């Protein structure tokens, strides 16, 4: 294979890895937005806490990969539900800005609380034996394969849950109407909690994978990754699950290509400019539908 094709394939692989992590986080944003019409600004920090749960499980409990992943997902899910119950539920009928500000506050609280407990960046031990295959010049690591396949698996599972199960049907129904659907016997609070649990659990999984791929974690890592995931959700059309996945892979691709051809410090600039232009041109995203505003 020629040099340039190998290079492109390598970058595509990197983009897939980054994109799948973004996608897992973006799903949490988009699900919460779909059901509550609220931007959960604390979600990026739930991802960060997920990475720290991974650290706890791997270092203090000495667990192997699979239980670590499960523990991080469970811990993050629990955190997500707790946040929803304590901070967001009382504000369900308040102005939407109140909920956004509360979410910002919760996010900073999580960052600084983690900082108080873990003042220095932590190193994650390698939980998986990392084998690197060389396929005609393209190097492919087992970690990359696991991250991509596992994320894709979780995404398909979520897609199945949302579109093919009673719980998913209830979620979609509640995102459609919050007044009459509960009257038909759908437990509103439970479904919202389940939504938060699933979203946060996926963020926990993303945290674990991110920690394995980039093994130094610190309390502020959730900010920028969380925002990138959020951009993905908006690019795909916020509230739309398949859109979030597509958006995440687009953003991952754009970022990797920018770092491949420009200085890496241009990455955030390009990502956020893309977001700004997209919102102006097509605010409802690639798969979203425009809403009409009424007086």
């Amino acid at each position: 294979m020629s040099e340039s094709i190998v290079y492109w394939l390598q970058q595509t692989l990197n983009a897939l890895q980054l994109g799948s992590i973004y996608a897992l986080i973006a799903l949490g944003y988009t699900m919460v937005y779909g059901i509550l019409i609220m931007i959960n600004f604390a979600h990026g920090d739930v991802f960060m806490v997920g990475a720290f749960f991974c650290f706890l499980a791997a270092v203090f409990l000495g667990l192997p990969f699979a239980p670590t992943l499960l523990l991080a997902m469970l811990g993050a899910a629990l955190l997500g539900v707790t946040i929803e119950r304590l901070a967001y539920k009382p504000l369900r009928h308040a102005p939407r800005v109140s909920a956004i500000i509360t979410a910002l506050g919760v996010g900073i609280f999580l960052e600084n609380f983690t900082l108080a407990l873990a003042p220095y960046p932590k190193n994650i031990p390698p939980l998986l034996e990392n084998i690197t295959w060389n396929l005609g010049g393209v190097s492919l690591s087992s970690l990359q394969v696991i991250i991509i396949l596992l994320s894709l698996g979780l995404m398909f599972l979520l897609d199945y849950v949302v579109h093919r199960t009673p719980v998913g049907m209830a979620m979609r129904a509640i995102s459609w109407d919050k007044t009459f659907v509960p009257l038909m016997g759908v437990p509103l609070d439970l479904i919202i909690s389940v939504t938060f649990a699933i979203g946060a659990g996926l963020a926990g999984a993303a945290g674990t994978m991110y920690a394995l791929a980039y093994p130094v974690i610190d309390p502020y890592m959730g900010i920028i990754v969380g925002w990138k995931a959020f951009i993905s959700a908006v690019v795909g059309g916020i509230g739309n699950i398949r859109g979030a996945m597509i958006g995440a892979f687009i953003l991952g691709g754009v970022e990797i290509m920018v770092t491949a051809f420009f200085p890496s410090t241009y990455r955030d600039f390009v990502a956020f400019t893309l977001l700004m232009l997209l919102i102006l041109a097509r605010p409802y995203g690639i798969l979203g539908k425009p809403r009409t505003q009424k007086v």
Partner: protein
Amino acid sequence: MGWEWLMAQRWLLPVLVAVGLVLAFAIEYNLFNNEYVREVMMYVGIPEYTLEYTLFNKYVQLVMMYVGINIILTVSLNLVNGYMGEFSLAHAGFMAVGAYTAALLTQKVLPVAVYPGLFPLAVLAGGLMAALLGLIVAVPSFKVRGDYLAIITLAFLMIVKSVIENIDTIGGPRGIPGIKKLTTLPWVFFWTVVSIWVVRNFVYSKYGRGVLSIREDEIASDLMSVNTRRVKFLAFMVSSFFAGVAGGLFAHLLQFISPRVFDIIKTTDVLIMVYLGGIASIGGSILGATVYTVLYEILRPSNFADLVSWLPAVVLDPLNEYFIRHLGVGRMVIMPLLLVLVMLYWPRGIMGLREFRWFIPKRDLEAHHRQPAHGGSHGAAHGH
């Protein structure tokens, strides 16, 4: 002779401003620090150390200047987030633009070492630069509102930060060190008064009515022939101008700026002050910024320890062991928690949608008295 009476004495406001300005100069130039004042104080019976530890203390002066800068930031953000009901997260970005413009001017262009009087020009330039960018941010707000505008303003903040980080001639990620300390108490006081005055007059002007009507319902106010675009241009411009001014003052107080100073956490600080004080209230913004800044300083471990040092050792020692020693990071945990608690249990803040009667124009007060049932254009006119 109660609060009502005090609020009716409108002439007190200019007197207070004048007294404040004189005091600011006096403190800055250490005019109290002479034996006459000490003698008078001893005669009156004020212990000498009070003055020593309050107005002369450089740290107290520093905190006072931070309070002033934070009032400018809060009042100007309240114009967009409170009065207009938009949700902008870009304030730290405007602040960064103002800070960098002013700092570069005083470092490279203006001969402030020879003529320190040129400093306000630099601050003004910082404000104007920020206002220019405010115009750009106002354009997306014509099309999008609410969550999406929050995202756009946040993207703007990130872009500003990223651009600064990528321009090496202005220090890149390392920032600008060694800025001269030109921010003085009188200048902070001056700009604080100017910002309050401008925002107050803007809010109670014809355009101010437009600003309030946009908060209540943008489409309806458009139909009622409010030129919403012009109103938004103006509101964003005024708001970002003062954010830039605050940035210029901040840079010359801290003497070091870097892109990391102006991140989302800075914006969140200002948001906390706005919502703690209460939206759509100038008095609330002043109170919110003051309470937040002073509280943040009191929660410094050494300050807090000093503050409670009168407690008996039985109480003090465990308190120190389990609480005060951890305040260094602890206060960074307490402040966002405070924001969440305010939003949950006190959504209107200290004086949300209310106002000190000093800030309300006479004609509004009179109109309010003529029509007691009048709720319409803004509930803000209800006296305190």
